[in-house]
């Protein structure tokens, strides 16, 4: 790769923009835009993790938001008990412990549900992952101690030596670095032998099996990595919103993650990040723009958004990344 490809240029621009714009906004007193960017980056991490299984491995999980929930609840529950007592095993404000807990629990959940789900294929896989997501949704609704359907307020954020999550800029920068690491990890994995087997199994499973690869194990490992990564994003998101409720793991939220990946370009490295940017930007600015054109019309922003989604599918094959980098080196 002596000459940088178009997708590499796009990647660099997006990542640079994400580094510069929110920080500038924060320094010029536009704290709200830093918030918007923090949420964006947390969702982008989740989308990048989903891309590993959906885009590269061809496993269309419709229950990925559940890992955001597990990660955020791990932080919230540990913090809750550190404040109000009981359950000494997890009661701590220590960020290292909370994040480890979030990652380990997410990985464990991914291992158990993945082992069952990966026995199925295609649309059955979509539905069984959705079913596990809905089970967890109702599970969290039934947890009265942690607010049930009302959700849980995280009174004290994760605590670390040297950095403070109470400082919005520091929280953003940490999330941004985690996003960079996630992108790098997925890129490395995709281009390793592991990634080649995943892609091979997506294209022609029988052939990969015939060559002697146990595709089931490869997929399960990818599923667990993606789950753990998404759990990490949930831990960050929980720290950002200081609030977690079952509504955050509803199937529609899993759907939104899917849309980010597909819209941006499944299987591409930066596509999911673009999808997350579009999603957050449209969600925030479309109603504002519509209200400027006709006051009160912003309420109906779902209408143009829906039309955009349909047109994106019909006319932008391979997502926006596919549209922008026709002839690029991805996929």
């Amino acid at each position, binding site marked *: 790769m002596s000459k940088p490809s178009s997708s590499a240029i796009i990647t660099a*621009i*997006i990542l640079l*923009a994400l580094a510069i*714009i929110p920080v*500038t*906004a924060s320094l010029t007193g*536009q*704290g*709200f*835009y830093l*918030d918007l960017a923090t*949420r964006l980056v947390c969702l982008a991490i989740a989308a990048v993790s989903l891309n590993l299984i959906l885009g590269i491995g061809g496993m269309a999980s419709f229950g990925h938001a559940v890992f955001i929930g597990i990660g955020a609840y791990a932080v919230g529950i540990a913090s809750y008990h550190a404040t109000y007592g009981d359950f000494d095993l997890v009661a701590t404000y220590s960020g290292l412990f909370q994040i480890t807990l979030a990652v380990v629990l997410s990985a464990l959940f991914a291992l158990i549900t993945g082992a069952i789900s990966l026995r199925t294929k295609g649309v059955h896989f979509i539905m069984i992952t959705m079913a596990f997501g809905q089970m967890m949704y109702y599970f969290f*609704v039934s947890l*009265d101690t942690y*607010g*049930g*359907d*009302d*959700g849980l*307020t995280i*009174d004290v954020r994760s605590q670390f030596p040297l950095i403070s999550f109470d400082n919005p800029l520091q929280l953003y920068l940490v999330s941004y670095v985690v996003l960079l690491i996630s992108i790098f990890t997925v890129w490395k994995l995709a281009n390793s032998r592991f990634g080649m087997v995943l892609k091979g199994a997506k294209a022609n499973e029988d052939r990969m099996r015939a060559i002697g690869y146990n595709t089931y194990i490869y997929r399960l490992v990818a599923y667990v990595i993606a789950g753990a990564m998404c759990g990490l994003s949930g831990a960050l998101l929980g720290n950002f*919103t*200081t*609030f977690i*409720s079952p*509504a*955050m793991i509803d199937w529609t939220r899993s759907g939104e993650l899917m849309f980010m990946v597909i819209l941006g370009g499944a299987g591409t490295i930066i596509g999911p990040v*673009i999808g997350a*940017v*579009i999603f957050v*930007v449209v969600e*925030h*600015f479309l109603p*504002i723009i519509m209200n400027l054109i006709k006051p009160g019309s912003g*309420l109906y922003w*779902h209408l143009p958004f829906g039309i955009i989604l349909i047109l994106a599918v019909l006319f932008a094959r391979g997502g926006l990344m596919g549209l922008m980098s026709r002839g690029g080196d991805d996929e």
Partner: protein
Amino acid sequence: MMIKKLLAAGIGLAMMTGTALAGEVKIGFITTLTTPAGIIGKDMKKAIELAVEQMGGKMGGLDVNLIIEDDGFKPDIGKQKTDKLVKQDNVDFVAGYIWSHVLLASRKSVLDAGKFLISSNAGPSPIAGKLCNKNFFSTSWQNDQTPMAMGEVLNQKKVKSIYIIAPNYAAGKNIVAGVERTYKGKIVGRDMTRWPQQLDFSAELAKASASGAEAIFIFYPGKAGGAFFKQYEQAGLRGKIPLYSVFTVDSIALGKFQKANMQGVLGSQMTNFWAPDLDTPQNKKFVSAFKKKYGTYPSFYAAQSYDSMFLIKSAVDAVNGDLSKKDEMRAAMRSASFPSVRGKFTYGKNGMPIQNFYLREVTKDADGVWTTRIVSKVYENHQDPYVGECKP
């Protein structure tokens, strides 16, 4: 490239909208404008716009700038919108909140920023108790109070046993706890249904009917209430087991019921702190102006929202528009000296009203329009049961 431009445009836009004009009071209002619950938010929006119009758009010499946001019936969206109001719009007051979970998710954002938080509907127990705050005021009630009054009504009517059906979420549990707190008869069954997904209550109605209970008590705000009443009727339970409710039948639902000619709702009884025929000067002014402007009766949601605006006005008036005088503004609100649709009331130390509760029933007005009217007073100056847990 496009993304970068969009973001840059966004920041430009923010700088346009984010600047505060001198000489205005900014009031953020969070409610639900989309989803089927959007109809409640629409009624609240009408009421606050009417209030501001009646004030001539001014409070304490300042122009009123209302910023209304939609929470989409989701706590995390409600919190995001609250953050926007607090951080980007830099409002002076945040009011509204239909749903307990949205209020609980958002309270910290408002209160940590040192702003005033006014609930125009939701009244979850933690906010009245251990999470109470000096900058919080309610123009509605604490969740437990209205069903407590209903429990008292059931005692007075000598109902020996009831069957409870309510949605399985926090407000639902508060309401059930409220009625059980005062009701002295037997509770023969209690079903907590899926919320907000479940709209078919066939199984629960069959159980209630077979249980031998003398009455059914329900709490179903929004569209589920209409569905429940219809199914109760279709199951032939009217005339067999009387149905008592709280926060289920309001002017929004009644318009729909009348259109569908659901005669069974007429005569149905509920408790509430307010009714359109409540005889106070402010209420007469409110109800007649609302009917004149919008052509329908206001709901209790509208009445509470209308009060929220006058509560805020009393604070801004008290300091003649000097919004830096937080302590004076707080003291003015604490005194509850504004003209309220409910008449004279006082505030507890948790910012919850100490007020009367009434039994009301569905009836036809002189024009044949279905509405509710007061039957009797159940509680005089009633205070919520959680105030003892509030250590401000």
